[in-house]
């Protein structure tokens, strides 16, 4: 059976997320998940079922995530996963796009008095297991002929606890995380984020290879959200927009054309996505944008029209 069929049969989407990463995917104590990765999955569910709630989240550690996807345990992996060639080509996976452009940075304790990554020779690093962070770090230090000691934890919670207890000098992770992780410290002012970014980290949803239809669906759900932002469609005005004469808007919301049909989705899938989850900008601002605990500027993640690199192919 195709993935779409089995998802429909099951009645919900099975989505792999983190075990808890603020802004990306985190459960509250009612079991409600929030975050940009979570919303990405909700958008897929909305596109298929017209109901963003028809999704179940499987918390996975970084080490487990690819195996879970490969084995079919989950349908989509939306777990701030970096898009790399190896992963794309040899793990039997396909990346469907980028829902967050990130880069790896360093959080260091103030007391060691370091202001640049080049001074970190010989330091101990707290890292999360199974991430590109682990590899980037090794590359960076090899390139700069420095030494380091990697201390690898299973979950981001443990990584922070390791750093908080003074076991390592530096916590390294995607920059988007550093601020949030810092805020978890009992004394946030005891640590600083270094200005260096040592890698490119395009994060995005992943699906299994070999099911092009499913690949297209997940890919175009994200594109639909970006296009919606370009077109100024938000969850608030989406009903009004339905009456719009703009053919682009009509195609997106399904009032014109057979975009949905081509993907194997209902015609109104674009409308459902925006109605249930919102456009990309809304999703961003709600979860990680200014005013949230993460308080991140759009930066690279702004639309191409606004100085960022968020760019989606046209829906036609």
């Amino acid at each position, binding site marked *: 059976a195709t993935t779409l069929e089995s998802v429909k049969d099951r009645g919900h989407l099975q989505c792999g997320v983190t075990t808890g990463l603020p802004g990306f995917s985190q459960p509250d104590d009612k079991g409600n998940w929030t975050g940009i990765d979570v919303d990405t999955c909700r958008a897929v569910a909305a596109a298929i079922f017209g109901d963003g709630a028809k999704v179940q989240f499987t918390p996975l550690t*970084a*080490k*487990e*995530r*690819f*195996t879970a996807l*490969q*084995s*079919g345990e989950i349908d989509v992996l939306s777990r701030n996963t970096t898009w790399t060639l*190896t*992963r794309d080509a*040899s*793990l*039997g*996976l396909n990346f469907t796009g980028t829902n967050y452009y990130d880069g790896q940075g360093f959080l260091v304790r103030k*007391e*060691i008095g370091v202001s640049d990554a080049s001074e970190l*020779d*010989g*330091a*101990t690093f707290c890292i999360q*297991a*199974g991430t590109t962070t*682990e*590899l980037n*770090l*090794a*590359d960076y230090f*090899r390139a700069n002929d420095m030494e*380091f*000691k*990697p*201390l*690898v*934890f*299973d979950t981001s919670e*443990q990584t922070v*606890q*390791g750093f908080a*207890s*003074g*076991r390592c*000098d530096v916590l390294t992770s995607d920059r988007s995380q550093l601020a949030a992780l810092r805020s978890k410290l009992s004394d946030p002012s005891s640590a600083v984020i270094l200005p260096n970014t040592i890698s490119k980290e395009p994060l995005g949803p992943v699906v*299994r*290879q*070999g099911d092009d239809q499913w690949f297209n669906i997940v890919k175009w759900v994200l594109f639909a959200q970006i296009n919606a932002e370009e077109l100024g469609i938000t969850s608030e005005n989406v009903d009004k927009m339905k009456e719009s004469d703009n053919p682009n808007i009509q195609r997106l919301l399904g009032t014109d054309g057979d975009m949905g049909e081509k993907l194997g989705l209902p015609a109104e899938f674009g409308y459902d996505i925006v109605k249930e989850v919102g456009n990309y900008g809304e999703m961003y601002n709600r979860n990680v944008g200014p005013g949230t605990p993460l308080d991140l500027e759009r930066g690279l993640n702004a639309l191409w029209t606004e100085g960022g690199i968020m760019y989606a192919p046209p829906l036609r």
Partner: protein
Amino acid sequence: MNDSNPHYEQTRRKPWNDPRVRALIFQAVAIAAVFWSGWALIDNTLANMESRGISTGFDFLNQSAGFGIIMSLIPYDATMSYGRTFWVGLLNTLLVSGMGIIAATVLGFIIGVARLSSNWLIAKIALVYVEVIRNIPLLLQIFFWYFAVLRNLPSPRQSVDVGGLLFLNNRGLYLPDPVAEPGFGWVAAAIVIAIAAVVIIRILAKRRQMATGKIFPTVKVSVAVLIGLPLLAYLAAGGPISWDIPELKGFNFGGGITMIPELAALWFALSIYTASFIAEIVRSGIMAVSKGQTEAAQALGLKSGMTLRLVVIPQAMRVIIPPLTSQYLNLVKNSSLATAIGYPDLVSVFMGTTLNQTGQAVEVVAMTMGVYLTISLLISLFMNIYNRAVALKER
């Protein structure tokens, strides 16, 4: 022989009433079922892997790993292969298991004997230890030792400094590393001689006992010789060992031998947890030796220490060994909880990062399980050999 029998007529035997035939059929069905399900499993897996585009085979073991490991007993860096990470992880597992088995055995025997102590306070403390420790999940205890202890250790700059040689901080315990210099040969020779001397002393002591009945304090003298002789040689040769003393460089100490807190926490937790079980095994082993044995020894005039050493312990060991074996096995398996605190054992390194980087779950998991199976079979094998050696001779 006379087959014709007026009272008896040969009843025809139905083949399905013959237990041997039944057994054969039953076993044939069972083995077919096993093979069928095994084949179905393999077939499914291969089909699934192919349809999902997962690569198969063990080629990945030769590819470059590209990630660092904080601790390894053999040279390792990020340019080495995934195969190498397997060995690094395996050795780390063996290291912590070996250390754990030794410490847990020693601690367990002490606590087990303490449970039977005549000192009320000691007996009760041993009881409390056992009842508290063995009823709390190991994972929690690992967390406890790791985070609780880490929090209370100073940072490298404020290290606890013992004579400028030994440092303790939240990066670990730093010890001087002995480096042999010319002249070290004398010390090595002294060690060999000391060992030889101990063997000779034992033989002589036995002979003397044979002849005069005097009992020579073999143990004390042996220890003295084993320590004293090499020490003398060391001093005489002008201290031919230089010490690579750890010192603070940058953020951390360099040089010397390091024991990282992850190893220490895991080691403590495993030893302390397993010791609580071993203590109970030891206690019940000692109690299993019948009272008649102790009485007989006492009636012969043996003092309580001798009774314990000559009569009780040798018999208790027979009872202790089999359950002790399973505790050792448990300890080895439990060492896989290392992954919870970042100690780079086999499960954490190989079934963790390597699996994640290569995506070859089936191969990696099979290798990992194979390792545990081998370790467990080896331990059982040794224990069985020992068991057979000490088995009571019966009629």
